[in-house]
C-alpha cells in the first residue's frame, strides 16, 4: 500500500478534493434553489392541483354524508327506490345542506351525469323545511315541556351517557349545532332544535332507546319520509337518480375522465354516452388533425425559406432574417387582429379577390370563423418556430456535399433528395414537434378566428372553467392535453435536447 497523497493542509488529497467537489455542488444548488422553489410553488404546484382536481369528488360525500352511508345497504341493481332509512338520512342531509346552500352545487355536479338532478335538488331544497315532520316536534314538546327548552337540549347533548343512548339524535344535533353557529351565527343553547332533530329523536325512540324524559312514541303516527320526498317529485322514487348518487359517492372518481372520452358510468359499468352528447372525441381528433395540418403547412412554407436563408450570403440572409424575426417578435394579438381584419367577408383579401375578378361580389369567400381561418392564422403565427430550428440545422450542412454529389453525376433533384434532405431531417423533426406542441394548446387565436367549427380542445377547457363551471371536467380534459404535450416534450428532449432550444437565431 502506498502512502496516501497529502494536501497542503495535511488531509489526504482525495478527501480534500471530495470536499471541494461537494462544496461546489452545494454552491451550484444554492444558486438554483431560489428559482426552483419559485417555479415549484408558482407553477408546478398549481398544475399538480389541477391534475388532482380531475379525480377529486368530495362534494357528494361532504354534502350528503349520512345518505352515502345509508346507501351502502341498497342494491344498485334493484328496480326499487331505497328504503325509508335512506330517505331519513337524506332528509337530515338536505335540511343541513339547504342552510349551507350546498345542495344546489351538489345538484349541478350530479346534473353533469344525469340531467334533471339540478332542478330536483333545487325544488327539494325549497320544500324540505315544510315536511310533515313537525308532528314529531309537537308530540315531544306536548309530552314534556323540557323538550322545547334549548338549554335543556344542550345539557343533554353534553352528557356522554345520554349521547350513548341516543346515537342518531346526538349525531344530528351536533351537525345542527354546527350549522346554527356557522350558517346562522346563533348560539345553539338559545335556539330550539329544528324538526329534523326531533325526527332523529323519534327514530332513536322507535329503535327502543331510553329517552331522557320518557315519552310514549307509539301514539305518534309515523311520517313516511319516502312519501314526503315522493310528493315533491316522483323522480326521488326512480332508482336511476339513486344509482347516480351512489356511483358518485366515493371521494375519488374516474367519472370526469370517462366523460372527457365520451363515456359514462352506468349502473352496470362503463358505457358510451348518448350519441348527441358525444363531443370530446371529435374535438380531440379535430385538434389533432388541425394541429397536424398547421404543422404540415409550416413545413411546406418554412423549408424553402430556411433553405434560402441558409444558402444565401450572410449579409443578405441577415437582412431577410428580419422578415422572419419581426413576426416572431410581434404580439400574438396584433397578428390575430391582422388576420381578423384581413379575412373578413368585407376584408382586404376578399376585396382584392373581388377586384381581380376571381370572386363575385355577392359570393365572397368565408375565410373566417371556420377551420380555414384558424389554419391560416396559426400557420402564420407558428411559421417562425419552424423556420428557426430548420435554419440552424441547415446552416451546419456543408454546401460541398451537394457539389460533390453533382460532380459525381447526380441531377439537382437526386442531389437534394438523397444528400441534402436526409441531413435536414433533424431540423424538420425539431420544428415539427415544436410547432405541434404549440399548436395543440393554442387558445386565443382559435377563439377569435375559429368560430364554432375551428376551435380546439383548449377552448372547451376555458368554456368549462368560465361558463359551465364544470371544473372537474375541465381538469380532466386539461390532464389529457397535458399528457399528450408531455409525451411530445419528452420526444423533443430525446431528439433535440431541451438545452439546445435557441431563440431568435
Amino acid at each position, binding site marked *: 500500500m502506498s502512502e496516501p497523497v497529502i494536501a497542503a493542509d495535511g488531509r489526504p488529497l482525495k478527501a480534500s478534493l471530495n470536499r471541494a467537489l461537494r462544496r461546489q455542488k452545494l454552491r451550484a444548488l444554492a444558486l438554483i434553489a431560489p428559482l426552483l422553489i419559485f417555479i415549484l410553488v408558482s407553477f408546478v404546484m398549481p398544475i399538480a*392541483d389541477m391534475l388532482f382536481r380531475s379525480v377529486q369528488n368530495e362534494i357528494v360525500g361532504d354534502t350528503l354524508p349520512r345518505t352515502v352511508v345509508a346507501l351502502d345497504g341498497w342494491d344498485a341493481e334493484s328496480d326499487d327506490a331505497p328504503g325509508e332509512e335512506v330517505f331519513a338520512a337524506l332528509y337530515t342531509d338536505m335540511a343541513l345542506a339547504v342552510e349551507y346552500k350546498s345542495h344546489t352545487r351538489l345538484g349541478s355536479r350530479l346534473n353533469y351525469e344525469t340531467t334533471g338532478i339540478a332542478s330536483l335538488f333545487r325544488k327539494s331544497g325549497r320544500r324540505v323545511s315544510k315536511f310533515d315532520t313537525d308532528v314529531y316536534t309537537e308530540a315531544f314538546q306536548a309530552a314534556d315541556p323540557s323538550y322545547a327548552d334549548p338549554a335543556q337540549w344542550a345539557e343533554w347533548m353534553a352528557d356522554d351517557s345520554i349521547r350513548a343512548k341516543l346515537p342518531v339524535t346526538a349525531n344530528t344535533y351536533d351537525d345542527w349545532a354546527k350549522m346554527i353557529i356557522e350558517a346562522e351565527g346563533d348560539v345553539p343553547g338559545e335556539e330550539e332544535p329544528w324538526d329534523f332533530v326531533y325526527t332523529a329523536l323519534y327514530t332513536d325512540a322507535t329503535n327502543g332507546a331510553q329517552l331522557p324524559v320518557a315519552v310514549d312514541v307509539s301514539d305518534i303516527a309515523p311520517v313516511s319520509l319516502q312519501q314526503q320526498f315522493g310528493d315533491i317529485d316522483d323522480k326521488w322514487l326512480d332508482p336511476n337518480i339513486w344509482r347516480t348518487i351512489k356511483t358518485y359517492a366515493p371521494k375519488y372518481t374516474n367519472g370526469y375522465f370517462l366523460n372527457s372520452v365520451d363515456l359514462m358510468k352506468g349502473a352496470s359499468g362503463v358505457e358510451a354516452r348518448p350519441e348527441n352528447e358525444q363531443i370530446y372525441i371529435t374535438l380531440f381528433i379535430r385538434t389533432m388533425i388541425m394541429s397536424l395540418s398547421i404543422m404540415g403547412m409550416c413545413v411546406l412554407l418554412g423549408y424553402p425559406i430556411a433553405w434560402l436563408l441558409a*444558402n444565401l450570403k450572410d449579409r443578405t440572409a441577415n437582412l431577410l432574417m428580419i422578415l422572419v424575426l419581426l413576426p416572431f417578435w410581434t404580439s400574438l394579438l396584433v397578428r390575430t387582429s391582422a388576420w381578423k381584419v384581413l379575412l373578413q367577408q368585407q376584408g382586404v383579401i376578399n376585396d382584392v379577390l373581388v377586384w381581380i375578378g376571381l370572386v363575385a361580389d355577392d359570393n365572397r369567400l368565408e375565410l373566417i370563423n371556420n377551420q380555414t381561418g384558424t389554419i391560416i392564422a396559426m400557420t402564420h403565427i407558428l411559421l417562425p418556430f419552424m423556420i428557426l430550428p430548420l435554419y440552424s440545422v441547415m446552416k451546419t450542412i456543408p454546401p460541398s456535399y451537394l457539389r460533390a454529389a453533382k460532380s459525381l453525376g447526380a441531377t439537382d433533384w437526386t442531389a437534394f433528395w438523397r444528400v441534402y434532405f436526409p441531413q435536414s431531417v433533424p431540423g424538420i423533426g425539431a420544428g415539427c414537434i415544436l410547432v405541434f406542441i404549440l399548436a395543440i394548446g393554442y387558445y386565443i387565436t382559435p377563439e377569435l378566428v375559429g368560430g364554432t367549427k375551428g376551435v380546439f380542445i383548449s377552448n372547451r377547457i376555458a368554456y368549462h372553467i368560465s361558463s359551465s363551471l364544470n371544473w372537474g371536467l375541465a381538469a380532466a380534459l386539461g390532464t389529457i392535453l397535458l399528457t399528450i404535450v408531455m409525451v411530445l416534450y419528452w420526444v423533443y428532449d430525446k431528439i433535440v435536447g431541451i438545452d439546445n432550444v435557441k431563440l431568435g437565431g
Partner: protein
Amino acid sequence: MSGLPPYATTGQRAWYYSFRVICGLIFFFLIAPIMVIIPLSFNAQDFFTFTPEMLSFDPAGYSTKHYEDFFTNSDWQLALKNSLKIAPVATLLSVSLGTLAAIGLSQSHVPFRRAIMAILISPMIVPLIISATGMYFFYSNPYIPTPFGKIELPFTLTGTYLGVVLAHAALGIPFVIITVTATLVGFDNSLTRAAANMGAGPVKTFFSVQMPLILPGVVSGGLFAFITSFDEVVVVLFVGSAGQKTLPWQMFTGLREQISPTILAVATILIAVSIALLFVVEMLRRRSERLRGITPS
C-alpha cells in the same frame, strides 16, 4: 449556393427563378399581414378596408383619430398602465432569479441537471390554457397543501396584482434560463478564478467580471420575459380581475365582442415596440458574438 452557374440549363434557370418567386410569396405571407395594419390604422372611417379615398392617397382619407381615441379613452389607458406596471416587475423577478439559476446550472458538477432544467423550462412547453387553469384553481384557494396538512393563508392571490406578477414571472423564466445559459456556454471560468486570485470576493467578481460578459444574454432574456408578460393574455384572463386588465386583455375583449378600429392603432404602436425590441436583441447578439470572438475558450 447563390447565383446560377453560366452553364445552367433552361430548366435550371426556370426553377431558380420560380424558387425565388415562391420564397418571395412566403416572405410576403409572413410580413404583409403585419404591414397592412399600419396604413389601415390611419383610416379616417371606422372601416377595416381601404376606402377609395385612401387608395387615391387623398389626405382626407387619413386621420389619426384612432390614436387619439387610444390616448384619451380611459379603458385603454388603464390597460396600458396595468401592462406597464405588471411586465417590468415580472421581468425583474424572472431575470434576477433566472440569472442566478443559470449560473448555478452552468457549473460543471450539478446533480440532477437535466431534471432541474426540464422543470425550469416547463412553463414554456405546458400549454397556456393548462397553466392558466392550474393557477386559477391554486391561486383562488387560500390553502397551501403540505405533507402535514393544509396551511391556511389569510388571503388569496386571484384578482391581485401580486398573483398576476408571480404568474407572469413564472412564464418568463424559461426564456431567461435559455438565453443566459447559451451565453454562459462560451464563458471562460478562468476569468472568475483570476479575479478571485486578485483578491475579489464572489460578489465583486460577479458584478465586475462575470456580469458585464453575460450581460447581452441577460438583457435579451429579460426582453423575452418582458414581451412574454406584455403580450400574455390567457393567464391574466384567468388569474387577474378587472383591476389588472392589461393591453392584450383589452384587445382580446375588443376583438371578441366588436372590432373597434382603435385596436388597429394599438396594434401599430405594438408593432413599433416589437421592431425596437428586435433591433436591441439583434445588437446584443452581435455584441455578444464579438465579445466571444475575443474571449479564449
